[in-house]
């Protein structure tokens, strides 16, 4: 047991810090700090900068062009990147599809797709959820019927995050409707430009067009776009879902959010004193900070225990549940901290086209609070995670 950073780890932190100082464009970090929406070009720019440094794919093996960082390195990077208000890395290609391709894809797929993910040639989105399925993924209905060397895909996906930017989608499709639900599913890679695909935005409760519905009407997908074996897609899907997602606890985001909250609470006045000196508010902030300090260690412990590339399984469910609770609590406190100035919702200001109403930090707080309710719903709801934990831990 040793909680101190080794000289190598400290040197790495300095390296990350210097990189962020030198390479992170100020207009990007300003947008992140103010809660403004990032456009596709913003994210592509940041991905390219990271890729240029060899740091875009933190947990890919070196052979595929990854950084192959260990748990502590990833932790350090996430901490520093969040502190510096770096844009978040979009995970669909890098952390979700890529591990599946590395493990189950054929050589041609690896050779073709992995470099394109790194280079930003492809923007992937995820075709998992369907209307009416929710967390019951395996009940999916989108059909793919083999016709010669193509699959003909019909159906609908939903909650497709940033699908409006994507040129590719990886999909779970039903290739055999006559067997047990989990046994008739395949994993397909689909070009979004294929005729018959339509993307419609879903406006979220904070007004943002972050997620989409994707409709498939007789979409012809080359059979070579099948990953692994037909009807084995459920295995790959589970691998993707439980695969080591280093940032599932969101510790870096929470840390940055907490720091921002404390800055706000030092400036906001309540009853003639800074809000942070209000004992009740200070107590709530302290409790979530204490939870986060422990979560940070929990995260490092769990990720360290899993050998590189291994799935920590049920522990990642624990990280997800507690991590989202902490992030949502910080969102709640931040909204409260700004008082009446959480009420305005000036869309033109949030789009960056006008002066803020009240203090500049106040604008996005209510929207972020509501938007981040998704954290405990999407990607396997916290109820699903609790069920997984109970199943694994009580099964013995």
């Amino acid at each position: 047991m040793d909680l101190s950073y080794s000289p190598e780890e400290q040197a790495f932190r300095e390296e990350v810090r210097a990189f962020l100082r030198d390479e992170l464009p100020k207009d990007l970090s300003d947008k992140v700090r103010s809660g403004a929406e990032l456009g596709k070009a913003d994210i592509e720019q940041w991905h390219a900068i990271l890729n240029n440094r060899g740091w875009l794919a933190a947990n890919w093996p070196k052979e595929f062009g990854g950084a192959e960082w260990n748990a502590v390195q990833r932790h350090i990077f996430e901490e520093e990147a969040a502190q510096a208000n770096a844009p978040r890395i979009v995970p669909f290609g890098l952390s979700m599809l890529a591990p599946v391709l590395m493990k189950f894809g054929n050589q041609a797929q690896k050779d073709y797709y992995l470099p394109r993910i790194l280079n930003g040639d492809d923007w992937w989105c995820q075709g998992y959820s369907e209307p009416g399925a929710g967390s019951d993924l395996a009940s999916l209905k989108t059909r793919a019927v083999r016709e010669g060397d193509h699959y003909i895909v019909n159906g609908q996906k939903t909650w497709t995050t940033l699908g409006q930017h994507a040129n590719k989608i990886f999909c779970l499709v039903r290739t055999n409707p006559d067997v047990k639900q989990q046994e008739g599913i395949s994993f397909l890679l689909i070009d979004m430009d294929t005729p018959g695909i339509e993307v419609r935005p879903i406006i979220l409760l904070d007004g943002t067009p972050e997620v989409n519905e994707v409709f498939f009407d007789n979409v012809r997908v080359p059979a070579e776009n099948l990953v692994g074996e037909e009807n084995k897609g459920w295995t790959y899907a589970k691998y993707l879902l439980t695969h080591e997602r280093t940032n599932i606890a969101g510790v870096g985001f929470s840390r940055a959010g907490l720091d921002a909250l404390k800055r706000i609470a030092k400036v906001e006045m309540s009853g003639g004193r800074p809000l942070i000196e209000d004992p009740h508010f200070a107590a709530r902030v302290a409790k979530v900070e204490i939870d986060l300090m422990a979560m940070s260690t929990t995260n490092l412990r769990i990720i360290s225990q899993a050998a590189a590339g291994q799935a920590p399984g049920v522990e990642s469910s624990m990280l997800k549940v507690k991590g989202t609770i902490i992030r949502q609590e910080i969102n709640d406190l931040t909204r409260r901290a700004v008082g009446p100035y959480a009420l305005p919702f000036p869309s033109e200001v949030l789009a960056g086209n006008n002066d803020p109403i009240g203090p500049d930090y106040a604008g996005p707080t209510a929207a972020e609070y509501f938007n981040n309710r998704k954290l405990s719903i999407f990607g396997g709801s916290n109820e699903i995670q609790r069920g997984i934990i109970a199943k694994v831990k009580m099964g013995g």
Partner: protein
Amino acid sequence: MDFNLTEERQMLQDTLRRYLSDKYTTAARNKILDSDEGMSADIWAGLAELGVIGALFSEAEGGFGGAGFDITTVFEELGRAGVVEPMLETAVLGGRLLSALGDDSQTALIEEVIGGSLHLAFAHGEPTSRYDLNRVATTAKTDGGDIVLTGRKAVVANAEAAGYLIVSARESGAVDDEAGISLFLVPAGTSGVTLRGYPLFAGGRAAEVTLDEVRLPASARLGAAGEAFAAIADAVAAANVALSAEALGAMVTATELTRGYLMTRQQFGRPIGTFQALQHRFSDLLIELEQARSAVINAAGHLADPLAERDRQIAAARNLIGRAGRLVAEEAIQMHGGIAMTQEYELAHIAKRIVMTDHRFGDTDYHLERFIALSAAA
């Protein structure tokens, strides 16, 4: 003790519920939310015609109600339907301030309020006053027979629609003295008044109000110079009762929507409402809903009490409803899952109404501290 609504209030409740369920559909409300005005003139006229505004005033004021339970009867229904029209600003805050302090010509405006032809806005909060009612930096200086107002007012709900802003300003004392605050009736369009309007996250509109040497006749003052604080506190007490009831109504709807969803939505081959974990959590929501209803009753029933007890009960209600409201809003969204995250779904708006209540006239913590202070003083 008696826990039944009077016949009149029962009728008011029935009528209002029927009207809103007919006219204030999700589609109609979404249209209102998207509109530039942020409210519907038709609905406002309809509410006036039904006597809903009149129910918030006493007979002496020209209405036929005005007590705590009249307020809660009306606002619970507004909350159930997620109504965004500015009943709080025009009728409760504006109306009560006029009634408490106005001279004959000023109180004559109440008739227009009850009739639905006049809107009001209470321009009191300032960029750094947060929830402190006593903190007023805007100044009122007498200049000859005139009064000159200078300052800034923050998040003034309904400012753009209001025929008059009721503006607080300090005539004497330190920035946080209760004494020295006056109210002024400022007609819309008065020179030197600038509004920067914007929509609110949970519906409706507000504005940042800049007062740049706004010159008014002395007759614009409501009541005696520097003595408006008690009336402000009274009006805000009534507003807190209204907000509590509105949140309760919205919580009822959130719970009902959740119940419906749990019973119809299928997952893993059965309604998700048959899963025990959700059943137990739903039961907790129902329990908190009963508690919230009791808190609203307590607040309304003590609205006419001596100030210390009135304010203690109101602080208790707002604190309890703040906690229960957050629980209900968050759990309702969580139990719904993704659908609740979409703007067009009823619950999204209702949840916003519940949560954003917490940013008006004190949040959950503010009211807890007030409760502690008032209990210690008792």
